[in-house]
């Protein structure tokens, strides 16, 4: 266990292992995404009341789920980097922020598009919508703080503290639809009871959620790999990797 934990902190090891993971995770993600999208968009039954417009759920729900999960990833990476001062955790936090922000934006955008045919308006100041917007600003704040420091290590620390402070808001966002019963419907999927939608619609949704988690992991790993290369660009192993074996002596 501990040796794995220590290895996790080593850039060359992380670079290699993430490469191995990506070689199989990338194809799996593509297949899952295609499968889920085709199933959800073409073959799932039409909704009785919303017609075909409900199909945006297959983008909206997974993207929103990832936007919350991404914040947790960022905050946990931030905590790890504060506690164990791990370089990889810094990088994970830095890379998770823009990806999470992108998924939050996608969730908001798809929600707005979905809102027009069902609620009759693109935007409402509903509890869930507003708190998602706040989440987006939290991501932007963490990124901005990170970038504002000249010293990258200190910027990472500051951003980690901020992302931990921001986690206070996550349960509020998650529970907002149950606490304030407003325009946004309460959660459809719960771990404790059967989903309040038909199985034929639910199965592709579940598939899409899994696919989006894989997509998030892939984007995170890819972006971490390029960040590792950028930060370690002066070290021997990167030079060896890029220029071939013989370059080690240069």
């Amino acid at each position, binding site marked *: 266990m501990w040796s794995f934990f220590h290895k996790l902190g080593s850039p060359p090891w992380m670079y290699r292992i993430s490469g191995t993971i990506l070689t199989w995770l990338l194809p799996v993600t593509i297949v899952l995404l295609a499968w889920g999208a085709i199933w959800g968009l073409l073959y799932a039954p039409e909704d009785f009341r919303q017609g075909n417009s409900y199909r945006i759920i297959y983008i909206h729900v997974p993207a929103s789920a990832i936007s919350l999960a991404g914040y947790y990833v960022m905050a946990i990476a931030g905590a790890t980097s*504060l506690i164990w001062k791990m370089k990889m955790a810094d990088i994970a936090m830095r890379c998770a922020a823009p990806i999470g922000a992108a998924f939050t934006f996608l969730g908001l955008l798809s929600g707005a598009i979905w809102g027009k045919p069902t609620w009759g308006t693109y935007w409402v100041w509903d509890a869930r919508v*507003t*708190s998602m917007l*706040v989440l987006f*600003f*939290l991501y*932007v*704040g963490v990124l*901005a*703080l990170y970038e*504002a*420091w000249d*010293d990258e290590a*200190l910027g990472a*620390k*500051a951003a980690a*503290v*901020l992302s*931990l*402070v*921001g986690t*206070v*808001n996550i349960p*509020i966002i998650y529970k907002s639809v149950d606490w304030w019963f407003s325009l946004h419907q309460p959660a459809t999927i719960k771990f404790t009871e059967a989903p309040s939608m038909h199985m034929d619609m639910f199965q592709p949704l579940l598939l899409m959620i899994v696919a989006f988690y894989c997509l998030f992991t892939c984007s995170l790993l890819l972006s971490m790999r390029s960040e590792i290369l950028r930060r370690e660009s002066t070290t021997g192993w990167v030079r060896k990797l890029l220029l071939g074996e013989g370059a080690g002596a240069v």
Partner: protein
Amino acid sequence: MSLATGLLRRQLLLAARRPAQVLSPLIFFAMVVMLFPLGLGPDPRQLAEFAPGVFWIIALLSTLMAAEDMFRSDYEDGSLEQLVLMPSPLFISCLVYAFAHWLLTGLPLLLMAPLFALMLQMPTSALGVLLVSLMLGTAVLSLVSSIGAALTVSVRRGGVLLSLLVLPLYVPVLIFGSGAVAAAADGLSAQAHLLILAGMLSLAVALAPFACAAGVRISVDAG
């Protein structure tokens, strides 16, 4: 304890020597109160409807304005570094900074609130709830801003960044603060909103000083 009281006395003394810095958020508050009737139209009914929200937004902005200077001068003259080096726990000093900030911005706001509530045509029945919600809410705001101020004090153009970091964290206070006043203005019970605000305050008192202390340490490292 003597350190905390000493630090508090020092903060207040420093503020008393520079009254302009203390007064400017309040003047700002008064001026924005004046702007809203000009922008929204002077219709008393309409003003009364918007007053709770307007009041809270201005409270937020004036707290934010003062927060920028919370650590600035102490950071620049090096006394913040001395504070970090002291053997006493840093989070207590952070709590004192936040408390001093509240005494210098939240409390004057509270004292001037009845006057502004009158000017914004807020029903007098809501005045008590307004004061209680402002007391609880501005204290949370001071504590939250202390975190943001600590994290941005050594950064160039930290003021803009501070607002970016802190405003999303102000949102819950705004919701429940203006919710409480709006409920009271409509003749409903504001107890639930006030209790949640009190809960936020307890949470902020317990946790914010630690985050603020971490921020101060990082900022001092940068200098």
